[in-house]
């Protein structure tokens, strides 16, 4: 658990410059620790990308409902007008 906590502090930029250097030096002589660190970094990237993907899906649903909600007719007309075929 401490290894994960330490890698997280590095990845989230919570370490001071000397702490970062020390941590990087430690990983240089510890291939197994370096692999663990690399995977943890990839997991954080993957979680953020999944977060974006899920949020975009949520937005798509919201847009569909805005474009079909009878209470939002003024908005729908405004958008439809912009994309009418005869406009440049």
């Amino acid at each position, binding site marked *: 658990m401490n290894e994960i906590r330490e890698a997280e502090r590095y990845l989230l930029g919570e370490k001071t410059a000397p702490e970062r250097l020390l941590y990087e030096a430690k990983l240089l002589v510890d291939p197994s620790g370096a692999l663990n660190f690399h995977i943890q970094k990839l997991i954080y*990237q993957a979680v*953020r990308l*999944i977060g974006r993907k899920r949020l975009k899906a949520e937005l798509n649903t919201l847009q569909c409902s*805005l474009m079909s909600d009878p209470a*939002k007719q003024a908005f729908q007309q405004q958008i439809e007008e912009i994309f009418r075929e005869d406009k440049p």
Partner: protein
Amino acid sequence: MIAEIDLRYQEVEARRQLFEELYEQAFPVVARLVRSMGGTYEQASDVFQDALVAFYEKLAADSLSISTSPEQYVAGIAKNLWLRRCRDAQNSVSLSQDQSAFRIREEKTPSPLLKKIMRLLESSGQRCLDLLQAFYFDQLSMRELSARFGFKSERSATVQKFKCVEKLRNEVKSKMLSHEDFLE
């Protein structure tokens, strides 16, 4: 104009409300620009949604750094993304139209390995993924995280979060070591 952002924007309902207002106020502006440059409704929607995602991430990371109104900010990011995409496609749009205040870093397509890790995370226990997303993407504090996921204390939420990271790290590692094709 959106005068004040509801600070509970990480909660589904408040977030929906905020995005709805942004759609009504900023989407027509972006749609007009995209249309004037020959773009489609789908392209305008895509660029606008990417801008909303970028706005949400900015809000979660550092809401104080947004100096303009939310709708101006989102429209600015969307315009910038659109101009950049056009430039990439045809290399002909004037650089002067690029407003640096609204520039965001557009991520490259994830590597095959990262895509595999995403799939593994999505198929390996919803609760861990939800917990990690709430912390690393939505950037909830440990207090908010404890409340949302029903932990007794911030400490137990922290422990659980690290356990999830450890479990996933071990799963990825074992795939890496046992399936050579995982690394391809």
